[in-house]
């Protein structure tokens, strides 16, 4: 009598047969999802809709960190009656996913108090809602004023709109409106059906995470096509991913110094970041690692010249980075600006389903490298850095400590790599995907959990492609962290999270 309620799937492993995924009644779906998400060790990695034959199918993927599995629930609605009881009042982390489903398909989630647009995609249900008409929250009061910033900002950064409600200098509320960067990525994965086009596309989801996203894509294709790659290549991919983490963390340290006008720290870290990205360029000809990760093989297999260059640069840059951060994080003028500012409490982070660095600096162990290991991390134990205070200082220190870790990881991985047999396989572009399958791929990028999910049709074409950047979960964390802060502290709070606009907007 025991009816199966969900499917279990492991990251970066065999895909599921679509027919085997049980479709639940909404009452059951609702209860099950809620019951699962009550547990701290589980969080929602993606919850989204897929249109098919007049119906709308909802998939909810929940990561079970303690058992290293992903649990998949499904529900199907008739398009004539798109009303559901919202899960958000009971489980806040689902707010953004329900908003997305509402925006894309017009599902009314009864009881959702914040059913606002996510990104104004071109194929949204209601084209009459345009990005200029975003319904901002406001408060009527003689004492309060609003500050609007963006979409075009003062620096060279991506566009997004921030609307503050302030009492004097103090921020009472911040609303972040995104969508300006929407390029229709998920649909392009289907319409651009050539394998190389998809690789290029995956590298352009968020250019600062080219390696993370292109690895997530390649893994997904490999699991759907049943391609195995050598251990040597797996190690190379991990090294590339750690190089990306190093470059950004060092660059962010520079930016944080810049925001508190500490020029020495800014300039020194800037130069150090250059050495790392130039090493990536030495390896593959591109400072952001575009072109380095491909399904099934590599155009730039690691070799001894590259290894020696990496070791040389890590030695020098590593030493100099620790020297300068030792200085930065001992200065009262810096600490005074970072300490106790922009706090995201553990409770807030849990309820938002925060991921990656943002979760780890609020005391939560979430690191896909450890909890849902992929590539060579399956055989190699990563030691995630967990900090407790959830403030700008913690997010700054997290970067320093993760740089320490990544340098160690790269050293150790290179040693293991040297023992492995190299097979120098070229990328595979003429793959055949298993028909009617569902596959999921996760990668811990420098920001956090990247997730790509694909569904194939009965002739093995990609019928649906879902991309989730960690920023999707974490933007709301920034909005909460600046409450009751001085508005002048917004820039350092924002930098300390360093979230992706294009990753959210897709």
């Amino acid at each position, binding site marked *: 009598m025991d009816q199966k309620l969900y499917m279990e799937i492991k990251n970066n492993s065999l895909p599921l047969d679509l027919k085997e995924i049980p479709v639940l009644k909404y009452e059951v779906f609702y209860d099950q999802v809620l019951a699962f998400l009550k547990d701290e060790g589980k969080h929602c990695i993606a919850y989204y809709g897929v249109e098919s034959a007049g119906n709308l199918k909802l998939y909810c993927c929940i990561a079970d960190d303690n058992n290293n599995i992903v649990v998949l629930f499904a529900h199907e609605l008739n398009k004539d009656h798109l009303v559901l009881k919202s899960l958000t009042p009971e489980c806040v982390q689902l707010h953004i996913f329900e908003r997305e489903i509402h925006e894309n398909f017009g599902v009314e989630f009864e009881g959702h108090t914040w059913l606002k647009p996510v990104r104004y995609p071109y194929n949204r249900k209601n084209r009459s809602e345009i990005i200029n008409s975003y319904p901002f929250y406001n408060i009527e009061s003689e004492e309060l004023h609003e500050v609007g910033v963006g979409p075009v900002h003062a620096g*060279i950064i991506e566009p997004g709109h921030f609307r503050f409600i302030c009492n004097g200098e103090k921020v009472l509320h911040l609303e972040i409106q995104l969508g300006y960067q929407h390029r229709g990525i998920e649909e392009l994965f289907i319409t651009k059906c050539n394998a190389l086009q998809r690789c290029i596309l995956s590298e352009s989801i968020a250019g600062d995470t080219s390696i993370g996203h292109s690895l997530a894509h390649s893994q997904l294709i490999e699991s759907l096509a049943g391609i195995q790659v050598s251990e040597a290549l797996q190690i190379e991919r991990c090294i590339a991913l750690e190089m990306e983490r190093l470059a950004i963390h060092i*660059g962010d340290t520079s930016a944080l110094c810049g925001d508190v006008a500490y020029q020495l720290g800014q300039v020194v870290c800037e130069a150090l970041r250059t050495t790392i990205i130039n090493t990536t360029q030495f390896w593959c000809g591109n400072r952001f690692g575009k072109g380095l990760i491909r399904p099934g093989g590599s155009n730039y297999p690691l070799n001894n010249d590259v290894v020696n260059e990496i070791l040389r640069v890590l030695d020098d840059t590593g030493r100099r980075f620790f020297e300068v951060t030792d200085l930065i994080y001992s200065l009262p003028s810096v600490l005074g600006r970072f300490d106790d500012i922009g706090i995201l409490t553990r409770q807030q982070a849990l309820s938002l389903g925060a991921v990656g660095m943002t979760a780890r600096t609020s005391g939560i162990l979430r690191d896909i490298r450890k909890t849902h290991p992929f590539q060579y991390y399956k055989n190699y134990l990563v030691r995630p850095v967990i900090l407790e205070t959830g403030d700008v200082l913690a997010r700054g220190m997290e970067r320093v400590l993760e740089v320490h870790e990544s340098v160690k990881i790269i050293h150790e991985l290179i040693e293991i790599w040297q023992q492995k047999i190299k097979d120098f396989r070229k990328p595979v572009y003429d793959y055949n995907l298993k028909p009617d399958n569902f596959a999921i791929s996760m990668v811990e990028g420098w920001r956090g959990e990247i997730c790509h999910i694909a569904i194939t049709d009965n002739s093995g074409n990609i019928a649906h492609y879902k991309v989730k950047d960690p920023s999707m979960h974490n933007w709301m964390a920034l909005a909460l962290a600046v409450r009751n802060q001085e508005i002048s502290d917004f820039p350092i709070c924002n930098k300390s999270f360093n979230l992706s606009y294009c990753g959210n907007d897709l």
Partner: protein
Amino acid sequence: MFKEIKVLKSHGIQYVKNLRMQPVSALFRGRPVISGDITKDEIKTVSFACPVMAIDGKSGSIDMGRCVFCKECSFLLPDKIRFTNDYRISSNVREALIIKPGSENPVQLDENRIRKEIRRLFKSALKLRQVSAGGDNSCEMELVATGNVNFDFGRYGIEFVASPRHADGIVITGPISENMAEPLDITYNAIPSPKIIILAGTDAISGGIFDGSPALDRRFIEQNHIDLFVPGNPLNPLTFINGVMDLLGIK
């Protein structure tokens, strides 16, 4: 105090002395060279394989304004197509970005087509406003890098400024998403005339891999005169720097 001195000593001198002749790593993918004896069949193969239709199926020329520099054509035909590490590939004329088989010539600006007021007004100081319109943040980071301690483009009085009111021109990255089309217009209109437009990166020049996406609105590009095209995915800081120096006539 001692810590500072130690840090400064390790830091040493980081700036690139000659921005015109900075060597880059051997694998850097810059200007392509296509062999003059590439055959019809070979052209067919690579133009079919190219993810962005940057290779003309008839002539075999490569349009760097479309190319995403994936190098896949060169992996297919290593004897016929190679990518040099020449990063000086910006031009003020769109056609100059099209590299024909047999050509080894560097990419140049057409001096006659540079608007007269540009050099007269901006040669000793040029302030630019950057707008990302669907950019993936890699071109944006490379533009930030032009002003960093290594490249220090500020040495020529060339800088990015916060307000369009303070700017002499606009630098656009990204394929121009529909949702950014209006903010881009507003920003451009807020810049006092005369002003210049620079397209930075392949996505901005042609839409790149996003070409054809219904989420774009590229009317701005069609309606305005472009003063400089800077190819790359993302553009290299040196490509941008050299392009702007050539535009302004800085030696």
